[in-house]
């Protein structure tokens, strides 16, 4: 029987089949953050229910903490301190390892977990956070759940699940220079729509996916949730093993040898069948930028806001009309050249060291245009340290970027720091929903290169036109 990677991991973790087509599946790793995880843990402890395997759960502060230098438990979000302290106390009480504000390994959960080898190929991993699919880039089955399911997993180390369907998205061809995993992720959403992956474990395959480095794969899988997928996954290969080896929680010695052999065998068998197969040519992808308020409302950077009836796959006409109104854009307006107010590099999508290096190479010796608020938030304290060792912080700061402590920061507005109403922001994040980055804020999603190029130009700019 030929099997996909998903089927192999699922069957390896199935404790038993329950009546009604539901499987009881073992969960290897549970990640919690102070926005949703602390609540799950607190509710469990308040019911007198212990955590089943505290050594397989990890907590981190990323969502609510401020990212200003010299930060503390005090937050701009009015009730943020309450979340931070509740999470800290609950983690201590439950005996769960916490990466607190001042921990050298603190970071955005989907950045720090791969860095530390918490997520491993072949593992089942859950976190009450929709972007948990990012971690499928290592060949793990990692998916986002809600608070109640997190309580369930904490109490039992297992979840009751219906087996999701399988989809393979094969991306052949080669990404052109200056075109990144982020552009690919956005182009896939533009082509197949934000509902395209609903109910599926989406396996990304093909030569363009294999050619991506691990950090690019994390970016691609990150936006699996924008595709409505159950999760995204990429088969482990030599690059995966090289990335995992030597990380803090990765196996060592003879165990490493055994694990590495098992992980390479997880790749989908030749001829394995999927419920749905899609294919895409990487050569067709240009630097992409969203024009609307859904990640599927996206065009190549040298294109214009679609006219009525021109982009039937990007939402209903009324949704597109509403998006144009919210974004303050008429159909036919070219994206490149639109004046911007702010530029943001950060988030679990694009805040890793390679993202910062590529952005810095464009910023080197240049200045952010006058009046533009430009912010760089490294994805983890480790990324920040590495960037500082390479002198990247000086490049960002000399250009006029703020250089922050790590966290989710202004990827979303939760009552703390935000951009202003009608501010036009080019952002390396993952969601451009109405008011996502501040009440009335207009978000354009793009790669870190496009954000850097636009910050310099003071308007949306094609990074390929700026020599690095």
């Amino acid at each position, binding site marked *: 029987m030929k099997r996909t990677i998903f089927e192999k991991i699922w069957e390896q973790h199935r404790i038993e089949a329950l009546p009604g087509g539901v499987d009881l599946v073992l969960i290897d790793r549970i990640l919690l953050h102070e926005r949703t995880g602390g609540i799950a843990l607190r509710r469990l402890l308040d019911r007198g229910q212990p955590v089943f395997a505290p050594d397989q759960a990890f907590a981190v502060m990323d969502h609510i903490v401020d990212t200003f230098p010299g930060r503390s438990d005090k937050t701009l979000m009015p009730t943020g301190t309450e979340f931070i302290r509740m999470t800290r106390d609950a983690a201590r009480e439950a005996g769960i390892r916490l990466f607190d504000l001042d921990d050298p390994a603190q970071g955005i959960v989907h950045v720090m977990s791969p860095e530390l080898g918490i997520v491993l190929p072949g593992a089942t991993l859950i976190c009450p956070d929709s972007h948990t699919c990012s971690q499928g880039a290592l060949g793990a089955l990692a998916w986002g759940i809600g608070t*109640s399911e997190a309580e369930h997993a904490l109490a*039992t180390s297992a979840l009751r699940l219906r087996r999701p369907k399988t989809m393979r998205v094969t991306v052949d061809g080669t990404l052109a220079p200056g075109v990144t995993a982020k552009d690919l992720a956005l182009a896939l959403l533009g082509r197949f729509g934000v*509902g395209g992956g*609903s109910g599926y474990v989406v396996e990304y395959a093909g030569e363009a996916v294999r050619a991506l480095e691990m950090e690019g794969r994390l970016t691609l899988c990150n936006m699996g949730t924008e595709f*409505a997928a159950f999760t995204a996954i990429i088969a482990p290969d030599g690059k995966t093993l090289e990335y995992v080896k030597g990380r803090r929680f990765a*196996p060592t010695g003879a165990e490493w040898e055994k694990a590495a052999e098992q992980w390479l065998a997880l790749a989908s068998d030749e001829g394995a069948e999927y419920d749905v197969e899609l294919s895409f040519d990487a050569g067709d992808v240009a630097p992409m930028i969203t024009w609307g308020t859904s990640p599927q409302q996206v065009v190549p950077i040298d294109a214009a806001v679609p006219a009525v009836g021109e982009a039937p796959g990007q939402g209903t006409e009324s949704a597109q009309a509403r998006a144009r109104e919210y974004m303050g854009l008429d159909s036919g307006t070219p994206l490149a050249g639109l004046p911007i107010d702010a530029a943001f590099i950060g988030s679990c999508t694009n805040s890793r060291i390679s993202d910062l290096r590529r952005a810095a190479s464009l910023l080197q010796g240049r200045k952010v245009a006058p009046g533009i608020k430009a912010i760089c938030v490294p994805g983890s304290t480790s990324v920040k340290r590495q960037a500082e060792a390479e002198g990247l912080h000086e490049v960002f700061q000399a250009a006029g970027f703020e250089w922050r402590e790590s966290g989710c920061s202004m990827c979303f507005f939760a009552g703390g720091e935000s951009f202003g109403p009608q501010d036009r922001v080019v952002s390396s994040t993952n969601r451009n929903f109405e008011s*996502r980055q501040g009440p009335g804020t207009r978000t354009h999603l793009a790669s870190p290169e496009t954000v850097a190029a636009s910050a310099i130009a003071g308007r949306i700019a094609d990074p390929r036109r700026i020599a690095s």
Partner: protein
Amino acid sequence: MEPVSEVSGRAIPFGRKNIDTDIIIPAHWLKTISREGLGRGAFQALREDPANIFDQEEFKGAPILIAGDNFGCGSSREHAAWALLDMGIKAVIAPSFSDIFSGNAFKNGILTVVLPQEQVDRLLEVARTDPINIDLTTQTVTTPFQDRFAFEIDPFRKHCLLNGLDEVGLTLSRDEAIAGYETMQAAQMPWFAKGTGLAA
């Protein structure tokens, strides 16, 4: 959890597609660690329009919401389900739901009913003037005009909803199976296993 067997009454004929959890409950309502009172923040941006459907007198307190494709996409926040519950919603009908949202809804005793678009369109029409009935036991949605639409539901979810069962308790009763699995895993995949000292 309270058992659910039937949801009957007015249904809000909303119908919009791709409603994300930021629209259901904007992030700035997630400031407290309590789940009460979120109904006031539900669909806040849409309710700024005085003509919005949610605040029309006849739909206040309606137990059913009829939505479009991909309802509940976006962030995993369970507050979306809590906000609907706090509004008085006990069931949502749509052509499709985001997986995380439908899981969260179920865990909070909200019934999610998937029907084909044309049947949802018909219900949107009926709901403007008349009540709708959802019978979980027979898995049917009916209207006063003899419409009768059958829906599928995961048998386990149906069983839990009908009996108001707590899933965690059910899984804990499988402790022997879980422990047996873990013994096997500790031998075959020790790098994942419980008790490997990761938290040390």
